[in-house]
């Protein structure tokens, strides 16, 4: 018995000791690694390690890794650790790292996260203060609209992304729809109706609740010329306009213009995976130009058109925004080296050639020209983006992109689609829920 006790206590001591030891030793090593950079930079040799975190698919990973390799060849003192992953869990990881102060030096973020991230704190360095970054190659208006936050340039856009209609040319040919149609609300509704009359299994529009929300917003903004929600958290529309938008949507559902949600529900949030769309039984997907390549891989003859615009629209409601931003962590100890890399990443001709359009249509004129000259850019995509930029409406303000408002809207739209609410009731419902949520959000601001 006694022997045994000794044994157990010995095991315990070892156990405790081990955990403490491991704890301590790694504590040191982690401090070491974070101090490492400062030490070496003061050593004049200026060997630095930069962490660069992004998400993407295989093409983006390969191109970015190639670009990093080339940069490291040219700048032997810089080592760049690539931390890349898919989109699953990326934001969750980023937020966790930001709260633990362990985020990478260079971070790719999505433009839709900015309002929510901005509400939480000041995480990103002001790039306009970095002398090594030349931002004159960018369209200044474009930078102002989405990349500035409280007069600070928090990141640089990796690509230009615009709202667009992606359509299946074979579907159009089959149902005798003119490829060159300029869409407005009337001819869209009429065509949608006719397609379904010709073939009960075919629907012109591939809409899920999120896409329907884009549509409702565009419809309303074209009528009002306001923001969806104003900067003072008041609604940018009245009940009449919203009711009209919902009535329009409701008619699309009732006339078979949109595949019923009861059928498309499994593909909510990923309409591009809907087998009916892939098999050419749905004609058109309201989405973003950034989705062009993904859909092009599956649909042989994919066209790209401008979203419907009413002839008397006060604002086109066409959104042109960055696809993502590259930012520098505010707490980065090597912000200068990171800035140099970013400058090279966006402005160097060789980098442009390697990176192609893996992060969307390049935001600088020079990069676009290099791609066009080398035949690396889809002309249809380029043209659609250029046209959208010419016609673009007011940029969206932060509160209009709020995730909670989006949730409320898609909920109400689903209730409309399942005919639990009439358009008028749906408008009432959305307005009352918006007003409650907006007053809460306003309270939090204080």
């Amino acid at each position, binding site marked *: *018995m006694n*022997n*045994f006790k000794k*044994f*157990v206590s010995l095991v315990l001591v070892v*156990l405790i000791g*081990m*955990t403490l030891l*491991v*704890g301590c*030793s*790694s*504590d*040191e*090593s*982690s*401090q070491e690694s974070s101090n490492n950079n400062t030490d070496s930079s003061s050593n004049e040799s200026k060997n630095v390690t930069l*962490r660069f*975190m992004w*998400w*993407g*698919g*295989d*093409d*983006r*990973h*390969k191109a970015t*890794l190639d670009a990093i390799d080339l940069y490291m060849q040219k700048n032997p003192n810089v080592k760049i*650790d*690539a*931390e*890349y*992953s*898919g*989109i*699953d*869990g990326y934001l*969750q*990881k980023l937020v*966790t790292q930001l*709260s*633990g102060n*362990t985020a*990478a030096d260079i971070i790719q973020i999505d433009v839709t996260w900015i309002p929510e991230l901005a509400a939480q704190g000041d995480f990103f360095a002001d790039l306009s203060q970095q002398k090594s970054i030349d931002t004159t190659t960018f369209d200044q208006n474009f930078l102002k609209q989405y990349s500035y936050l409280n007069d600070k340039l928090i990141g640089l856009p990796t690509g230009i992304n615009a709202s667009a209609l992606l359509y299946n040319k074979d579907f159009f040919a089959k149902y005798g729809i003119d490829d060159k149609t300029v869409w407005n609300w009337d001819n869209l509704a009429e065509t949608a109706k006719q397609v379904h009359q010709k073939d009960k299994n075919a629907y012109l529009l591939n809409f899920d609740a999120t896409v329907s929300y884009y549509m409702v917003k565009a419809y309303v903004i074209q009528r009002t010329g306001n923001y969806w929600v104003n900067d003072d958290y008041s609604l940018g529309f009245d009940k009449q306009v919203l009711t009209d938008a919902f009535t329009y949507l409701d008619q699309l559902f009732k006339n078979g213009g949109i595949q019923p949600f009861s059928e498309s529900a499994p593909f909510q949030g*990923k309409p*591009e*995976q809907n*087998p009916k769309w*892939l*098999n050419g039984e749905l004609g058109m997907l309201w989405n*973003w130009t*950034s*989705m062009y*390549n*993904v859909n092009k*891989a*599956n649909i042989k003859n994919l066209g790209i058109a401008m979203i419907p615009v009413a002839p008397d629209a006060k604002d086109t409601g066409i959104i042109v925004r960055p*696809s993502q931003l590259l930012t520098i962590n505010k707490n980065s100890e090597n912000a200068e080296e990171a800035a140099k890399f970013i400058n090279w990443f966006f402005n160097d001709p060789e980098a442009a050639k390697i990176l192609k359009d*893996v992060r*969307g249509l390049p935001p600088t004129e020079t990069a676009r020209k290099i791609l066009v000259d080398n035949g690396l850019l889809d002309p249809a995509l380029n043209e659609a983006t250029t046209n959208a930029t010419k016609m673009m409406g007011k940029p969206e303000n932060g509160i209009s992109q709020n995730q909670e408002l989006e949730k409320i809207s898609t909920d109400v739209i689903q209730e409309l689609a399942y005919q639990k609410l009439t358009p008028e009731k749906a408008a009432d419902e959305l307005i009352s829920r918006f007003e409650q949520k907006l007053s809460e959000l306003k309270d939090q601001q204080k």
Partner: protein
Amino acid sequence: MNDLKKINVSIIFTYIFLIAFALLMVYPLLWVVSASFKPNEDIFKSLNLIPSRVVTDSYINGWKGTGQYTFGRFFLNTFIMVVPTVIFTVVSSTVVAYGFARFNFPFKKVLFALMISTLMLPDSVILIPRYILFNRFGWLDSYKPFIIPALLATAPFFVFMMVQFLRGLPKELEESAVIDGCNSFQILLRITIPLCIPAIISMAIFQFIWTWNDFLNTLIYINSVSKYTVSLGLRMSIDATSVVNWNQIMAMTVISMLPCIVIFFSAQKYFVEGIATTGLKG
């Protein structure tokens, strides 16, 4: 004669039942295997199990991944993380469960309740404080957040499970060992553990597969791609705005399931020998 018939009929029914449900169980695997041989654009288009055209480079290209690290690396990493985690979990959970099941110490009920209650808070809210804690220990970008907690029996599921199994064991054997002068640790080693081999094997299987498949925790704690595990590798190229090579992902899903299947298949055989030793009783 009648009896024989009865038995035959019931055996036939058993087989029909087993095979019918087995199809339901195995269909998804067949689908994934077939998807891994399909051309990429066909995967979402058709439900057919037979590919319109057989593609085999999905396995080769999928294995290569982005070119920086192959799946071989991810497999090795996963083993480095999973094997110690499983061993430590099995040892520590068995010891702790033995303590809970066989001794009456002060605050036992409170401690046990406390242990079970740690299962009841969702990961979403635990995630960040735990991350900050592991950051303070300096364990980020390593497998320590998995291995060291396993050493300290922090998976209540397994402790609770072992407690239930231990308390279902006949007591006579242990009692006779006490009379023979064995101390409690010797009893645990020589009598109790051999008696609950099936439970211990189940524990090892579960912990192996769960750690192998763990995505969220590995994602949060591992930064370097060179340390990625298989489950991270499977999702590292999935993005809504990029062309995803689904057939490669399906191919790697098939490969990544193989170790789990092999482990399960070879481990479950030991279920037979469970309680053979009860014969000693007389």
